């Protein structure tokens, strides 16, 4: 019982201690705000700019969420195609790898030109999708291929057709793999949307990355930190939601330790 509380309290206490040391150091050493603001300055900036920052958080969340959903659905669909035809897999997998290994920063200008500077948000979305896509594809592909030989033979014995095999065996079997991929992917979608916004600019909408650039240019470092904190919180919340979803969906798998 004590251990349980401790595992919960220990990181909180150490984090609060860190904030105290940070606050005392900044104040006692008279470190200027534009170099390192004290936690209280950051909190004050967060309160002062909360409406701007919250709007930007929502924009970043929206892009991340859509990028994650599009990437996941597309990756699962392509993994299904791969499972149905070796030729499709051999043809498309190298292209997927090319997208995976190409740095998003390097293709951002190209995507921006294609989509048009007025549609920067779409460009960011596309770039975030490219970043988030591969882990789901790789894991879904692995999951579908990992189906136990005996289970596969059981379906052959009863002459299951392709659709039965896919929906009653391969996809449910691959679900834990797919969710692992999605857990990685949701973090990457956030990173992708931030990096893409850094490179592509924000156009008409202003996400958190744009707020960071803006605050940096104005040497408003407390606001920069405030935006950064919101970004981290967003990442943690998205990861926790995904972990919870995984726990609920895999209830039946989780109990099975055999």
């Amino acid at each position, binding site marked *: 019982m004590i251990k349980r509380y401790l595992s919960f309290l220990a990181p909180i206490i150490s984090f609060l201690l860190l904030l105290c040391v940070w606050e005392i150091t900044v104040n006692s050493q008279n470190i200027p705000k534009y170099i390192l603001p004290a936690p209280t300055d950051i909190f004050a900036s967060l309160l002062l700019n909360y409406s701007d920052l919250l709007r930007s958080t929502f924009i970043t969340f929206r892009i991340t969420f859509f990028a994650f959903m599009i990437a996941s659905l597309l990756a699962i669909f392509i993994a299904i195609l791969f499972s149905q035809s070796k030729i499709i897999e051999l043809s498309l997998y190298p292209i997927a790898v090319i997208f995976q290994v190409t740095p998003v920063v390097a293709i951002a200008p190209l995507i921006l030109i294609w989509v048009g500077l007025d549609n920067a948000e779409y460009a960011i979305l596309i770039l975030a999708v490219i970043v988030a896509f591969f882990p789901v594809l790789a894991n879904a592909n692995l999951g579908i291929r990992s189906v136990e030989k*005996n*289970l596969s033979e*059981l*379906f052959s*014995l009863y002459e299951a057709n392709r659709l*039965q095999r896919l929906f009653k065996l391969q996809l449910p079997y691959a679900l834990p793999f797919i969710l692992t991929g999605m857990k990685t992917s949701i973090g990457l979608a956030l990173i992708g949307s931030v990096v893409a916004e850094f490179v592509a600019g924000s156009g008409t909408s202003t996400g958190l990355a744009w707020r960071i650039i803006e605050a940096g240019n104005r040497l408003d470092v407390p606001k920069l930190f405030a935006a950064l904190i919101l970004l981290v919180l967003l990442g943690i919340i998205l990861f926790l939601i995904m972990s919870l979803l995984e726990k609920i969906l895999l209830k039946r798998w989780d109990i099975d330790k055999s």
Partner: protein
Amino acid sequence: MFKFNKIYKEYDAPILGPLSLDIKKNSFVSILGSSGAGKSTLLRLASDLIKPTSGSVEYLNNKKPNIGFVFQDPTLLPWRSVIDNVLLPAELTFKNKKVSEEKAYFWLSKVGLEGKENSLPNQLSGGQKMRVSIARAMVQDCSLLLMDEPFAALDEVSRNKLEDDLLDIWKKNKLTVLFVTHSVTEAVYLAERVLVMSSSPGKILDDVIITNKKLRDDGQQSNEFFSKINYLTNILKKESNE
């Protein structure tokens, strides 16, 4: 029930045969042999899961019977309840749902799992999982039951109970059973006929008929039971030394 006509199977190397075999309807045949003797391959050939490299499998009246397959592990889908696992063959073959459900409940009670219909596989013991697997094989009114070391991973008490239940199911349902095992005792206890296979490539080394019905009925107590075991054990020992 079916015949193997000069069956030969190879992958990278020869696995089985040439092998000819005649399995009579309603018989209980055990297959003994060391690892790599092609026992599982033989079952897969009999079930038409794999095709022979040469030779043919000939079913009675040229019609493939309803086949039930019980693997070494229970091969249950973990996300499906017990009843849904048993209903899987009916679903895949588009059988009437209501009739299949009745049969599924019947077979689950027959294998002693009444009340466990809505449990998940991971809530069952190893023996119970294997019983679900047997119920699933039986639910399609199979006439040929192929079993690939089904009780190998079970403790002795569960194994003995399942062996007796299997004999009961075989007798009452006029099944033909092909039962692969590593255990000589199990083979002699269950079967009317024991095939001993040699390895690399798998061939029939000996074909031992256990004629005395009383032998099985008396269980593991009779002298003849032990003499058959000794005989088969010696063949296997000799084969492994060669």
